[in-house]
C-alpha cells in the first residue's frame, strides 16, 4: 500500500468526535500523578507509617527500619542515614508490576504519552516504534514483576493479620479496628488485581490450547480469567486502596483522627 493513497494524518487532538473524549485521559493523568506524588511524599516521610498493630502497605515489608515490624532490625551501620528510606527499598517492586501491567500501559500511553490521547483522535507524534525498541521491549518482562507481586500479597496479608492483634496493658489479644478492616480490604483488592494479571492468566493455563483433562489448571485459568475481565477496575481500586490505607494509618498515627475499635 502506498502511503500517499491514505487519508492525511490528523493533527494533535483533531477529531470529529463530539463526546468529552479528553476526560478519560485527563482523569488518568491526574489520578496517576496524584498517586505518584503522594506515594513518593509518603515514602520520604520515614515516620507515621505504623500505629498500634497497623502498618502501611507503602512500607511493607520493612526490611530494615526503626519499628518493631522490621525484619532485620534497625538501619545497618553501613547505610548512610541521609539516604535511608525503608519504603524506597520496597516500592520499586509493586511499582514495576503496575508500570508494566497491560492495563496501566494502555492507560498511561493515552494519559501521559498521548499516543493516542483517545481513540480516533489525532496524535502529536508522526513517528512511532511501539514496544519494540529498547527500553520499551522490557515491558515484555511483566511476568517477572508479577512473580514478585504474588509474594507481596502474602506479606500484606501477614501485616493485615497482625492488625488483629492488639497489645493492651502488656497482653496481646484479638481485636478489630476500622484500620484492620481497611487493611484487609486493601489486601483483597490487591490480591484480586494481582490474581487477574494477564501474564498469570497465561502461565496458569492460557499458554495451552487444550485444558481438558487438567481440572486444576482449567479451574485456575477460569478463575483468573474472571478476575482478568475486571482487571482495569481492580487496578484503579487497588491503587486507591493502597494509598488510602497509608493515608488512614498516617492520620491515626499523627493524631488527626481516632481509630474506632470495634471490639
Amino acid at each position, binding site marked *: 500500500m502506498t502511503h500517499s493513497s491514505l487519508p492525511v494524518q490528523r493533527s494533535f487532538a483533531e477529531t470529529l*468526535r*463530539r463526546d468529552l473524549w479528553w476526560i478519560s485521559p485527563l482523569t488518568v493523568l491526574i489520578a496517576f500523578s496524584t498517586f505518584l506524588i503522594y506515594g513518593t511524599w509518603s515514602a520520604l516521610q520515614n515516620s507515621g507509617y505504623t500505629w498500634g498493630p497497623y502498618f502501611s502497605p507503602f512500607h511493607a515489608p520493612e526490611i530494615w527500619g526503626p519499628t518493631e515490624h522490621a525484619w532485620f532490625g534497625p538501619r545497618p551501620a553501613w547505610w548512610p542515614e541521609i539516604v535511608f528510606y525503608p519504603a524506597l527499598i520496597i516500592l520499586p517492586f509493586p511499582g514495576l508490576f503496575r508500570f508494566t501491567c*497491560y492495563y496501566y500501559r494502555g492507560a498511561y500511553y493515552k494519559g501521559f504519552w498521548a499516543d493516542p490521547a483517545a*481513540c*480516533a483522535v489525532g496524535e502529536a507524534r*508522526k513517528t512511532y516504534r511501539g514496544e519494540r525498541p529498547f527500553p520499551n521491549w522490557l515491558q515484555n*518482562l511483566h511476568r517477572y514483576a508479577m512473580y514478585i507481586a504474588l509474594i507481596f500479597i502474602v506479606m500484606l496479608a501477614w501485616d493485615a493479620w497482625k492488625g488483629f492483634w492488639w497489645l493492651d496493658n502488656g497482653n496481646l489479644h484479638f481485636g478489630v479496628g476500622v484500620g484492620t478492616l481497611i487493611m484487609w480490604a486493601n489486601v483483597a483488592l490487591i490480591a484480586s488485581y494481582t490474581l487477574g494479571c494477564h501474564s498469570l492468566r497465561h502461565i496458569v493455563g492460557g499458554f*495451552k490450547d487444550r485444558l481438558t483433562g487438567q481440572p486444576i489448571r482449567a479451574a485456575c485459568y477460569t478463575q483468573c480469567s474472571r478476575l482478568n475481565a475486571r482487571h482495569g477496575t481492580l487496578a484503579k481500586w487497588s491503587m486507591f486502596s493502597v494509598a488510602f490505607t497509608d493515608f488512614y494509618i498516617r492520620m491515626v498515627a499523627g493524631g488527626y483522627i481516632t481509630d474506632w475499635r470495634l471490639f
Partner: protein
Amino acid sequence: MSTMTDSGTRKQTFSLWRGERGTGAFKDYEATVTDGMVVLDVVHQIQAEQANDLACRWNCKAGKCGSCSAEINGKPKLMCMTRLDQLPANEPVTVEPMRAFPHVKDLVTDVSWNFEVKKKILKFVPRAPDAPDGTWRIQQADSDRVQEYRKCIECFLCQDVCHVLRDHHMHDEFIGPRFLLYAAALEMHPLDTGDRVPALKKDFGIGLCNITKCCTEVCPEHIQITDNAIIPLKERVADEYFDPLGQLVQIFSRRKEK
C-alpha cells in the same frame, strides 16, 4: 439541526463526505428522520432523494456482513447498527469514510489491503486425525476460547481505529487487530500444530500494539480483542523471546506442549 413534527418525524442535517480518491469535503443534506432509523437508512434516503450518485457500501443491514463501516460523529461504527436515538438530535451528524484505508469515493474505501495481509498468515495446520475415518475429537471447553474470535465479521473498524494504521500508516509492518485476532484463532485452536509466534514478532509487528484497547472499544461483535487475543499472543511471544527462566523450566518439564 433537528425540528420535531407532530407525526414524530423530524428534520436533521447530515454532513456526508463527498469526493473521490482522497479529495472532497463534507456536504450537508437535510433528511426527514425518526428515532428508530439507523444512519444507513438516512444515507439510503439521501441517496434516493437528493444524491443519486452517492457511493456507499452495504449489504445485510443487520450488523453481520461488515460492509457499511464508516465514521459517525468521529467514531468508527457500522452505519446499519447506529440508531439515530444514540446520536445528539440537535446537531448535524457527520458521516465520513474509514481513515485507515485508501479512499475510493464518498463513503467507500478500498479495504483490499486486509485480504492481502490475511494471505500472509500461516493457514490451519491440523494434527493427525484422531479416528481412522479421518475425523478429530475436541471438547467443547477447548473450543470455547477460539469461538469468540470467530464472531468477527471483518468490518475492519478495529483496523480503522488502531492508531498504528490510522495515524502512523505502518501497514507494511503491522497486520492490525483484525489479523492478530485471526492469528489467535488459528494459534490457539485445539487441533492446530502450526507455529505463528516467530512471524507475529518479526513480520506482523505485534510489538507495535500498545494496548490502548481502541479495537475492543469499537468492535460491533463485542469481541475482547485486546484481552483475549492480542495480549495472550504477546505472552506467547514473551514465552519464546523474553523469558529465559521460562525456557529453562521448559527444558525440565512438558510445559511447551500445547
